[in-house]
């Protein structure tokens, strides 16, 4: 019910003004609008889902308090304001948890660290996504296209180098990349729909 009351059209300035008047719908709206992006950027930097959740929660507690007090000088820069708080909170939490690693520490594999910090739900989700990626790869009938994707995403070769070494035109490269991305988007969307159906049924 609440969702139906949420408007996406309010500008950051208007949203900030509404929060300053203790509008609870606006508080819900700012969460819906900005929390996914904040979670993504914290998760990317830490590889830790639970930490990302905690950081986002605390970020909004601080932000809402400051917005209610009208302490945001430039309400148009709401996203920068939220990001700034999130980065500070993340740094503090990581320090507190003793998880701050020195730059260049190669003692642990990045994947291993990320996997260890994931919740069972996140691991399941990641497994499903990996299956979808495999499916996308298997559906590419041309070996060279699979090589292309691999080198683009995993070995991080430059596009020009890949095109030259695999004798691909830039158009072909873009086409294969677009097709893989589109197919993956469809599969992900189907997965989300199926998950939602299961949740609805249960």
């Amino acid at each position, binding site marked *: 019910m609440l969702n139906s009351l949420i408007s996406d059209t309010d500008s950051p300035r208007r949203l900030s003004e509404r929060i300053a008047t203790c509008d609870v719908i606006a508080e819900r709206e700012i969460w819906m609008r900005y929390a996914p992006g904040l979670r993504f950027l914290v998760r990317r930097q830490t590889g830790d889902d639970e930490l990302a959740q905690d950081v986002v929660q605390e970020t909004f507690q601080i932000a809402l308090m400051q917005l209610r007090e009208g302490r945001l000088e430039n309400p148009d820069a709401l996203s920068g304001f939220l990001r700034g708080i999130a980065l500070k909170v993340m740094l503090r939490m990581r320090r507190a948890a003793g998880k701050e690693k020195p730059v260049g520490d190669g003692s642990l594999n990045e994947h291993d660290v990320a996997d260890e910090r994931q919740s069972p739900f996140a691991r399941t989700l990641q497994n499903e996504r990996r299956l979808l*990626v495999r499916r996308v*790869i298997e559906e590419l009938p041309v070996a060279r296209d699979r090589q292309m994707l691999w080198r683009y995403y995993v*070995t991080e070769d430059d596009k020009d180098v890949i095109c030259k070494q695999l004798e691909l035109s830039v158009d072909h490269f873009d086409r294969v990349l677009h097709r893989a991305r589109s197919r993956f988007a469809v599969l992900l969307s189907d997965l989300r729909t199926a998950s939602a159906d299961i949740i609805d049924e249960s």
Partner: protein
Amino acid sequence: MKHTTMTRPEWPDDELIRKYLNGAVTPDEEARVELRLLDDPDFLGHMERELALRDGLAALSEPLAEPHRGATLMRVMPRRTSRRWQWAAAATFVLAIGLLAALATLKRSIDERNALAMRIAQLDMPVANVPIVPVSIMRGVSVATELPRSLTVLRVYLPETTTVVDPGKYRLTIIQDGSKQPAFDISDLVAMDDGSLSMTLNAGKLLPGRYVLIVNDQPPTGKAEVMRAVLSVL
């Protein structure tokens, strides 16, 4: 049958996105990307898919929780992120030690990369280096479906009575009228969600005439004929 079409999203900052995901951006670039992540839900969705695609590809070597169509798992090169620069620094150091040693290292690196590229190419799908552009969509009908000679990809829709969610594989054979040898024979095809089988087929290499297309269900689900259709190559 479900058909999904998507408009192509334009992401002019493709390289920046890649740098961001690889942890190779400057603080200014990082801020630019992250502010857009907060302000643009479509951009966020794109980034999430890109990250999932990259991680999914990198993890193809890792064991999965559930088996998937017997595909071969391969050990692949570990993902490189910001440590890429460390490797570059290491390579520079090696160069300083001696040109010969550096050349040997470089050659080994290239060999490893080529070997890696070959291994990813060995997934159990048919291989044909034909550019994919035109697509012919054909349904199981009795009238002959004309194949243009420029056709390079054939998409065959299985009859709706076929259980397309069946994880089994299919074999597709195309035989010219009056001939006993198949002009085209391909196995291990997996049906897509919309009930179609896709394959590369260079129609320009087929002789003009009428052909019969047969799709069979492969073991272990059985050898039943799933569909039969008539093709015509002019």
